[in-house]
């Protein structure tokens, strides 16, 4: 395996990690505030469809992004109303959102575009194009550093850079701001927040809204940057992989990034080596494709050590004396 191949695999790792990372951080905000969200998948899917649809109709990827975010936030609001206002079961609400998104996206796509539940392929201004970092061309011939800079770091869409910048930003918000302190507190002991005179409901809705925003960007990235249009079930379980990464990361932003890079790397390897040949033993493509999911199962089964979730996670807050 030569250096350039490695660079290419890492390059595609970054692209494939981006939606996972955005979704993972989305889940992080929601769950650190005590609202479990298995509806990441559904929100991403809905955002993917609406961003592709609006981008296809208007020709503007930015309008598409906004539409995707709006669609995801509507679902996040729905989850908030069910889980926070009406104190419903958070898992059931999340499952409902996943079903809703899986069905609605295909149904609306068929109704609007009559292309078998997909959107038209996006072209030109309907897609996020790669950004070239400054001096990428100039530096490209330099050995080692050149390819790393020009191939690996440069040439991604703006959403990729946004996703990776969101990691330090999330860490800073959670650990260095008043909002972050309150958000973490409400996920651990909402009664402490309530008796301190801060609104539990308000904080949790804010967290769920951030979750919707990030899921919206993740979905829009899938349909308008990673691929060129929406196809049925295009999230392909990424919302669940993001959840696994979140647990793997023990609900911490920097760890979340590394976990998502690991999953992205497995996906990149699977894409690159359809049939991996290790000294005569051929690993079939199906196994390669299944790797990220197998890792997900392993992680969720608790093989990564003890992950302590936010203490009040999954429980609606009921005021008591």
């Amino acid at each position, binding site marked *: 395996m030569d250096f350039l191949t490695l660079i290419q695999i890492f390059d595609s790792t970054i692209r494939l990690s981006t939606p996972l990372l955005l979704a993972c951080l989305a889940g992080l905000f929601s769950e650190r505030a005590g609202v479990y969200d298995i509806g990441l998948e559904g929100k991403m899917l809905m955002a993917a469809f609406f961003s592709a649809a609006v981008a296809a109709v208007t020709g503007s990827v930015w309008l598409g992004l906004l539409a995707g975010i709006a669609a995801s936030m509507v679902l996040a609001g729905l989850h908030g109303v069910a889980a926070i206002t009406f104190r419903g079961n958070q898992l059931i609400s999340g499952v409902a959102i996943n079903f809703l998104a899986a069905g609605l996206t295909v149904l609306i796509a068929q109704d609007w575009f009559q292309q078998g539940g997909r959107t038209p392929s996006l072209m030109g201004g309907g897609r996020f194009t790669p950004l070239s970092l400054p001096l990428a061309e100039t530096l490209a011939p330099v050995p080692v550093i050149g390819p790393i800079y020009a191939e690996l770091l440069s040439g991604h869409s703006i959403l990729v850079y946004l996703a990776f910048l969101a990691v330090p930003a999330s860490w800073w918000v959670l*650990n*260095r*701001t*008043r*909002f*972050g*302190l*309150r958000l*973490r*507190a409400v996920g*651990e*002991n909402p*009664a*402490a*927040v*309530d*008796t*301190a*005179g*801060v609104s539990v409901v308000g904080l949790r809705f804010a967290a769920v809204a951030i979750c919707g925003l990030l899921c919206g960007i993740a979905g829009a990235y899938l349909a308008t940057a990673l691929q060129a249009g929406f196809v049925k079930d295009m999230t392909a379980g990424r919302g669940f992989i993001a959840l696994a990464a979140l647990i793997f990361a023990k609900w911490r932003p920097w760890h979340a990034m590394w976990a998502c890079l690991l999953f992205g790397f497995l996906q990149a390897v699977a894409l690159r080596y359809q049939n991996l040949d290790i000294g005569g033993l051929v690993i079939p493509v199906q196994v390669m494709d299944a790797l990220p999911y197998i890792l997900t199962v392993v992680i969720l089964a608790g093989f990564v050590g003890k992950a302590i979730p936010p*203490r009040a996670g999954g429980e609606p807050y009921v*005021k008591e*004396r």
Partner: protein
Amino acid sequence: MTDDQAGGRQAPAAPAIELRGISKAFGPVQANKDISIRVMPGTIHGIIGENGAGKSTLMSILYGFYKADEGEIFINGRKTEIPDSQAAIAAGIGMVFQHFKLVENFTVLENIILGAEDGGLLRPSLSKARKVLSELAVEYELNVDPESRIDQIGVGMQQRVEILKALYRQADILILDEPTGVLTPAEADQLFRILDRLRAEGKTILLITHKLREIMEITDTVSVMRRGEMTATVKTADTSPEELAELMVGRKVLLRVDKVPARPGQTVLEVDNLRVRDPKGVERVKGIDLTVRGGEILGIAGVAGNGQSELLEVLGGMRPGHGQIRLNGTPLALEGPGSDGRARRAAGIAHVPEDRQREGLIMEFHAWENVAFGYHRDPAYQSGPLMNNAALLRDTQAKMQKFDVRPPDPSLAAKNFSGGNQQKIVVAREIERNPNLLLVGQPTRGVDIGAIEFIHKQIVALRDQGAAILLVSVELDEILSLSDRIAVMFDGRIMGERLPGETDERELGLLMAGVSGEAA
């Protein structure tokens, strides 16, 4: 005393807190009925009453958790609306809840600034709080390490953090709800010194408790609540525990348990080197030896969480253990077949579990069903392959009569009885089987004084019939007045055994805190 001074200096002094005609109903239940009190600044005012008397509801209204249906609140003479906790904090009211409202994996400092931060960034708030905290530590002798995490400090310290939280928000009025429930006697004494200091600095304190001793020890004035009404407000110096108990219950109450000296017979229960691990693998009972003879009550004292519950549960067949236990000389299984509650009952062990609502009763079921649980295979309750419900009903009715359960209605669901009456149902079920050994955990937790008196009498009566009784309680008063021998547990071990006549709360308190007998 402070009361008079305040009144003398600035006539007419406005009360720090004045409630006028507060009423609050939850559905058909009138939790607070036309309650009025005045508390002068710089005093400690006690509010005493049985469980369900409405003390907590009243305090929740004052702290903005509930809205009163009627009535007015005046703080420092000014009419104040308190729709939420934010308003209460703004009015200078701080509350220390019975169950602390702290974020366990936050530091002391983070807990203190939560909700009272200055600005959007944490760093300036934290350094300001650090400074204020060191000032408060000097002013009120409230020392805590601001950087330690809550889950790494003891309960007494956590309570200080709660008090500091209130002081940091510049509270002039502090409400403490059953503050000593989780403390060792030494910690409680420390708390009272702090309260004394706060009073000296001019703070007004409302102390809610059901412990008469605390009222007598620290308060200036005391109000008694009964069934949602305030039945009396008196100067503490002018009253006595007996009078307060009578005001609480509405009739004369015997505060001391009346019993003749024990006449212990043969050894009934022998425990050798008992060890118990909890499901997480943590050892909770670390090698206990004890014996209980017929006709005596062995009281196990200790702060909650030192292995007493696990000891009871193993003896009662609710969880496995290691070691040996013998009942009248016969070994009992500690794990596997024959170690369950059914086998224990068959061997003559009755068990009044610590948590009646989770282990003693099924709250949704009728009283008559609850009276049968554990003994439902009794042939007297059978009629061929079916349950003989008529027999059960008759039996329940008899037990309810004998134990004065109110209302005496066997078909009422367990959850519809008051705490005391629920406990009477459990105690009746277990005692009426005439067991060789009775295991009793927290027999009077959350039970009103009248029922306490009754339950204690029944336990002593069973002892006098020759049964062995193992009593586990976190209430030292109860241990001291019921037991014939006292063993103190700390960290899964027995720290020492004492005779009730030859020890006192101070010595037991030291043992409960893990200070061994020699050092004490």
